[in-house]
């Protein structure tokens, strides 16, 4: 009898213990620190808008890094966050690209996706967005243009956010984003001030780098205006700013190289040992490994074509628009460094949180880095970091950016915004 009782008691204790046995970790107290996230706005360009795969489309917008941050901010008093989404029936937005297959030699075949465009007129102009707005990311915008009153007539991504139609738009970008009070901002501007020069091979007169002095003046202006939080009191809003990544480390410039081009050429013409290029100054010379070729050169399928084979003879060199020659690359590096020096000093002078996106993305060059067991690198297509355009990021890439912003904000303002789970976001979709 006694043993029966003991046996039952032990069983009872065991059952109770097992039922309540989940191990607990120390709880985290949510805190907004010294910041106020009740209305967060995101100011920036394509990277802020969620642009990917050579276009702005709904899935990209849904995976923008500001939206990730805003969602996490809700645990520490963040308010609603509105993104100018394309409608579901126009989810391809501006149009984008996808990976369709690989060629026999393993090159990716990239094709356009334009089934559900949000085009409302020639230009093209895109379907207007009306309603609340927090993500002000405008693909293509340069810092150099944020005070340009006519900009709303030139950039359709900006135009779609404005009530007016061309040629009647006169609101500058900086006025537009500060029209309504806000408490917190992220500003990631400056990339396009040098990117356009780089991606056109330095060959476009319309896309010369923004002068350094102009950049500094406008960055200071933007920071001081944003810190007024849409009002007139300095310090009404707090914020985070970011350096711009060195575009020369992106797959747009690192995928097509002199060795890869020569290898392709030599498969058909083994005697060829040099490629000829036109430099930014108009000189024709043999390419070296210090010259950069654009990602788009390989899909253009021009090399070796024509009576005098394109690029294989000095009489018919590769045009300057496909090449960022050594000197042009030095210009890109010089401006990138100067812009980043400005961004860092403005952040320091105004006590803003700073993300060094340039340093962050450099960690993934070469063989890359392990992120929660996944290899992430800046390799084209397979690296998980960059989308198919080779410049903008994948959802996984944007989530890494979001976490860096979150860590920087938490570090500066003593808040406890939780990071996002990077592994929940995808890389390039494969067929």
């Amino acid at each position, binding site marked *: 009898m006694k043993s029966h009782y003991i046996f039952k008691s032990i069983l009872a204790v065991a059952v109770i213990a097992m039922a309540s046995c989940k191990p607990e970790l120390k709880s985290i107290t*949510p805190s907004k620190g010294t910041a106020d996230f009740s209305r967060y706005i995101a100011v920036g360009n394509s990277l802020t808008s969620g642009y990917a795969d050579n276009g702005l489309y709904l899935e990209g917008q849904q995976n923008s890094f500001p939206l990730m941050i805003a969602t996490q901010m809700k645990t520490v008093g963040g308010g609603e966050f509105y993104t100018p989404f394309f409608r579901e029936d126009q989810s391809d937005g501006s149009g984008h690209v996808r990976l369709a297959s*690989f060629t026999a030699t393993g090159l990716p075949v990239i094709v356009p996706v334009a089934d559900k465009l949000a085009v409302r007129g020639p230009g093209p102009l895109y379907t207007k967005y009306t309603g609340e707005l927090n993500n002000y990311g405008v693909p293509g915008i340069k810092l150099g243009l944020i005070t340009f009153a006519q900009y709303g007539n030139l950039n359709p991504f900006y135009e779609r956010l404005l009530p007016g139609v061309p040629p009647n738009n006169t609101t500058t970008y900086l006025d537009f984003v500060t029209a309504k009070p806000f408490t917190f901002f992220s500003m990631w501007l400056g990339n396009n001030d040098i990117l356009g020069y780089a991606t056109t091979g330095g060959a476009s007169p319309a896309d010369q780098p923004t002068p350094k002095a102009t950049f500094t003046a406008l960055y200071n202006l933007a920071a001081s205006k944003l810190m007024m939080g849409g009002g007139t009191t300095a310090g009404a809003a707090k914020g985070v700013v970011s350096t711009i990544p060195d575009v020369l480390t992106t797959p747009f410039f690192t995928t097509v190289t002199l060795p890869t081009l020569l290898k392709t050429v030599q498969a058909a013409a083994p005697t060829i040992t040099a490629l000829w290029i036109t430099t930014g100054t108009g000189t024709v010379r043999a390419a070296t490994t210090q010259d950069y070729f654009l990602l788009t050169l390989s899909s253009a399928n021009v090399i070796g074509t024509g009576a005098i084979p394109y690029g294989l003879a000095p009489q018919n060199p590769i045009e300057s628009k496909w090449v960022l020659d050594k000197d042009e690359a030095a210009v890109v590096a010089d401006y990138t460094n100067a812009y980043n020096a400005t961004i860092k000093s403005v952040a320091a002078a105004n006590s803003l949180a700073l993300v060094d996106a340039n340093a962050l993305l450099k960690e993934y060059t070469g063989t890359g880095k392990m992120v929660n067991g996944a290899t992430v690198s800046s390799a084209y297509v397979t690296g998980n970091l960059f989308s198919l355009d080779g410049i903008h990021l994948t959802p996984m890439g944007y989530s890494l950016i979001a976490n860096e912003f979150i860590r920087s904000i938490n570090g500066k303002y003593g808040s406890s915004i939780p990071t996002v789970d990077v592994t*929940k976001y995808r890389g390039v979709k494969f067929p």
Partner: protein
Amino acid sequence: MKKILLGLLLGLPVLGYSQSFQVNLQGQKQTAMAGAGTGVALDEAAVFFNPGAVSFLKKNGVQAGISPLYLKTAFRENGSNITEYNKDKLATPVMGYAVFGNPEGRLRFGLGIYTPFGGAMHWNEDWTGKYTVTSLDLQAIYIQPTISLKITDNIGIGGGLVYSMGKVDLRRAVPLTLNNGQSGTAKLEGDTHDFGWNAGIYVKTVSGVSIGVTHRSQVTARVKDGDAKFDVPEALIAGFPTKFTAELPLPATSSIGFGFYPSEKTTIALDANWVHWNKYKELAFVYNNNQRVENTRSPRNYHDAAALRLGIQNQTTERLALRAGVGYAFTPVSEGYVTPEVPDANRVLLSAGIGYKASEHFNVDFSFLYENVKARNETNIETGLSGEFKTVAYIPGISLSYKW
């Protein structure tokens, strides 16, 4: 009987772990005493605990037992506010022993079937560490025919050949996005068949204290021609392997144990185990196609680790025995090497149990073991997975024995 036991063992999905992927649930009496039993001749499970003590068992017998193991691990990525848990999965390591021969004679025989290594860790398919592992099922069942010789009235030696049958099923996500937006997956499955041995010496000293020293050899579990199943994008699948080979050392354990008998009814067992984990340097997979995936060599760099176990048994009445124990196991896993398939750390063991003699021949034993694994927060050197693990395990158990 042997066939039934064997069938039962092979048919069941096994396990959990007790120090890294070592499992220490080889007998209900011993489990109730925190796993101590090297220096005492308690019952048929001596085939495992000390083959030298088998010849000192007063009766022949067979026993079969099971220890359903409920293990819960919490993980929180550093920076995140979300705690993730492994899936509920009851592992059921089983054990069976038989001892025969003439109890009056010097020579006895034994057979043991037990599971000294295993693991059953299942995370959600989309958890934050999915690219490191989503599930691991590992089991090594040892079958050990044993011979034990009483050299003198006070000294016994014994040894057994170990035949190990292993099974591994490791799954993880592959960081390539399928067209539907999901990650690819990999599943590595294989069997192992290897040999080892177990030997021990048991001494009854004049002071009344009994001493046991044993060594269980390393078994190197080799998977040859294992199946590698990659669910990855069609455009890439031709570059992925279909077969793999791998090796996992199931480390040697050296033990010394003491038995104290403060009264006729009370037995105290004290064990120290030294597990030679330093052989586990890396987990390497060699594939038959390296176009898309390199062979992997994941560093583990385990170091040797000890465990201390103290148990007490009191024969309260003629029919009833009460048992309790406490133990401490040091982790073999160095800082920076904790992995989610075996989120090991130093652990405290608390146990209790009862034995009931139902008749002259039949005995039933119950045990309950609680393991509290210390919380551990670190960043894995290989994968970069950074966060805090905390594990507890609750392991009830029962065995039935028939003695003659």
